[in-house]
């Protein structure tokens, strides 16, 4: 019984939140890594692109709600998602046409790209704050819980409860769907293969008749879809605040580099690695050991590696460790 209790405790406080947060990071990290692999720069405007997409989704959600349209048990935001994706694609392509294309044709160095992406970051930051304001917005509606901790306790008779929010399940399912489609596309279809070829060797790809314009267009479309989906899932699960989205860029970068920058599968794993270490290392295991240890041997301290304040710092530290030992990431990077 104690063993079961301890397992449920870990599931409730580490595994379920870890999977949710990991999925959100993974989706974001795949976007960053695709931009890096194909367009060859680290896009600092990505966090704000996520915020922009989520903002559109929120606005459409409000519009739908005012018309009395909801999605039943599911959040209305899922209905609004396609509109958000379309507008985010439009914005990405607009910035690509007006800004990035010029530097791409000039073959500027990566630092120039980083700097102009900073400019776009400022602009998007302003646009989001001007349109929707800097405040916290909760746009989750529909059914909140699939299973409440109390219900679980009554059902199983255990001491520990297992709460399952519907956003957590939605996040997981959406991530699975999105990632399977994406990896199928990249690995099995001809266009996906040409994208990988372009990322691997630009000149050779050109020689084989791959149209770089098409590849760039495709990349921005995929990236915008990923950004909007990741942003909306994060907003549904926690809440929408432009500043948090900017801050999330940092763990996303960490996940990207840990997984090997330019490597989507690595970014996927990197997202989960970062999420689980953030949550796992800041969790206090006192209660967990209380269940497992025989009586009288219970730990007196919290058994916490580092306090929760340092949650973000952990992902940064992991990144730095990875950069020292394996600068190319845990999985070999730079090839899609």
């Amino acid at each position, binding site marked *: 019984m104690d063993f079961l209790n301890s397992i449920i405790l870990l599931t409730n406080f580490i595994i379920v939140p870890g999977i949710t947060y990991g999925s959100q990071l993974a989706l974001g990290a795949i976007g960053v890594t695709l931009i890096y692999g194909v367009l060859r*720069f*680290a896009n600092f405007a990505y966090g704000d692109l996520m915020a922009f997409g989520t903002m559109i989704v929120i606005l459409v959600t409000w519009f739908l709600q005012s018309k009395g349209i909801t999605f039943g048990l599911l959040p209305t935001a899922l209905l609004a998602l396609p509109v958000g994706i379309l507008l985010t694609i439009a914005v990405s392509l607009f910035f690509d046409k007006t*800004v990035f294309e*010029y530097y791409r044709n000039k073959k500027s*160095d*990566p*630092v*120039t790209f*980083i*700097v*102009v992406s*900073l*400019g*776009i*970051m*400022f*602009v*998007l*930051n*302003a*646009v989001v*704050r*001007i*349109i929707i*304001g*800097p405040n916290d917005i909760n746009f989750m509606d529909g059914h909140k819980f699939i299973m409440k901790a109390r219900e679980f306790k009554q059902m199983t008779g255990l001491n520990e409860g297992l709460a399952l929010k519907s956003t957590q399940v939605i996040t997981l399912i959406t991530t699975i769907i999105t990632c399977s489609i994406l990896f199928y596309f990249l690995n099995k279809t001809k266009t996906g293969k040409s994208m990988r070829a372009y990322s691997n060797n630009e000149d050779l790809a050109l020689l084989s008749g791959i149209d770089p314009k098409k590849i760039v267009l495709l990349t921005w479309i995929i990236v915008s879809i990923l950004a909007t989906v990741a942003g909306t899932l994060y907003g549904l699960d926690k809440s929408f605040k432009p*500043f948090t989205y*900017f801050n999330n860029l*940092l763990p996303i*970068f*960490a996940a990207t*580099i840990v997984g090997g*920058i330019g490597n989507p599968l690595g970014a996927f794993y990197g997202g989960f690695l970062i999420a689980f270490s953030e949550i796992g290392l800041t969790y206090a295991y006192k209660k967990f050991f209380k269940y497992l240890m025989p009586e009288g041997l219970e730990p007196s301290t919290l058994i916490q*590696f*580092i*306090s929760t*304040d*340092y949650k*973000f*710092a952990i*992902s*940064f*530290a992991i*990144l*730095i*460790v990875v*950069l*020292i*030992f394996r*600068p190319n990431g845990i999985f070999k990077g730079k090839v899609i």
Partner: protein
Amino acid sequence: MIKNSDFKICFSVMTVLTILVGLFQSWGIALSMLNLCLISAVMAMGVNIQWGFAGLINFGVMGFLAIGGLATILVSVPPVPEAWSAGGLGILISGLFLVAVVFSVLIINKKIPNHKYKNYFIFFIIILSIPLLKFIAGPSISKIESINAATSGFLGGANLPIIFSWFVGAILCALVAFVVGKVCLGLRSDYLAISTLLVSGIIITIVKHEEWLSRGVKNVIGLKRPVPYEVDLQNSEWFIKLVEFFNSSKLSNILDPDEKISLLNQLVITSSGVFVKLCFSLIFLVVVITILYFSEKALNSPWGRMMRAIRDNEEAAKAMGKNVVKQHLFIFMLGSAIIGFAGAMLVTYDGLFTPSSYQPLRYTFLIWVMVLLGGTGNNYGAILGGFVVWFIWIQSAPFALLVINIFTNHLDETNYIKEHLLNSVPYFRYLMMGLGLLLVMRYRPKGLLPEKIIKN
């Protein structure tokens, strides 16, 4: 130096902007803008030394500014004796422990020849040291934080004049930059950008949450000043005389003595604020000119030429026998020290230390916009960038207000769109920054005052 055209542009822009604001808004606002411009100029020069001279991309500006700010507390705040007696020993021991860990890692790294498991061993030491550190320092920390939690709850500082803290901040930053540089400088440009950004995130987290050190989010207010306080000025004989002297024509027009005294009082109050800011401006100006002088000297010395050579072609510089790694580390420390100096200046000027206000957008990327807009590799450019960008940053809200009012003039006061736009006026500054950066990068990629290569 005076013959330099860049210097003239810089100086005239600086003067014109200040006078314009002084005439149209008020002299108090003009001087506080000037002061922040001067501080920004120091920050921009720090970044410019790293990026312009050596091509090192440092997105960790925010972290170094925070360390500089922390230095003001460690130096100027009076110590809290109860806290020292309660937990001082524990903190000292854990500090020694930390130093021991750092040194053992450095020694292992240097002395033991490259072995397959060397890195893993170092990693193991660092990981093990974190819970140990927590175990050693934990009890003392909770003791310190529980003493007068509402008013102090930290160790305090050394109770020295705050001006020392500027130098202490610079030294602390150089030390941190040494460690950061050892770890990160070998990385490629974009990796370096990301990792320094993340390191600055770690630094901010530490400053924010180690309350025994910095009071964390509870902030430290009422710091010392290197200049007199307004209240003291208002009560001092010579200052009132001075105000009387400057406004003698205005005062002599009024015949009623009571009215005269009340006007004088008012004048003394407003001019005391201006006087304090003027004192700050003078000190900051001295700092800016000193740093400018030395970095111009350095840029035009053999060392500066070597740095540019390393920046422009690392391989060639290496082939000529220059120690690129060592020089990169040195210039990274130097630039960070200047940024830390500016961070201490900023906190001194504000008179308070608020760790939660350090955000990358304002304290890292804005400084970068200053450097890129002003001119990479040119000290005058950095100063000009500091001025222009800070001016736009401050003035874009009133400007946006004006534009919105013109365009929505025909709309009703309670119109939803108008109200919404008026509420979001502060965010137009981000828009201006972004557009400014994009335009400059497109049409003047070397900045407003490009680097000048002197050919002998």
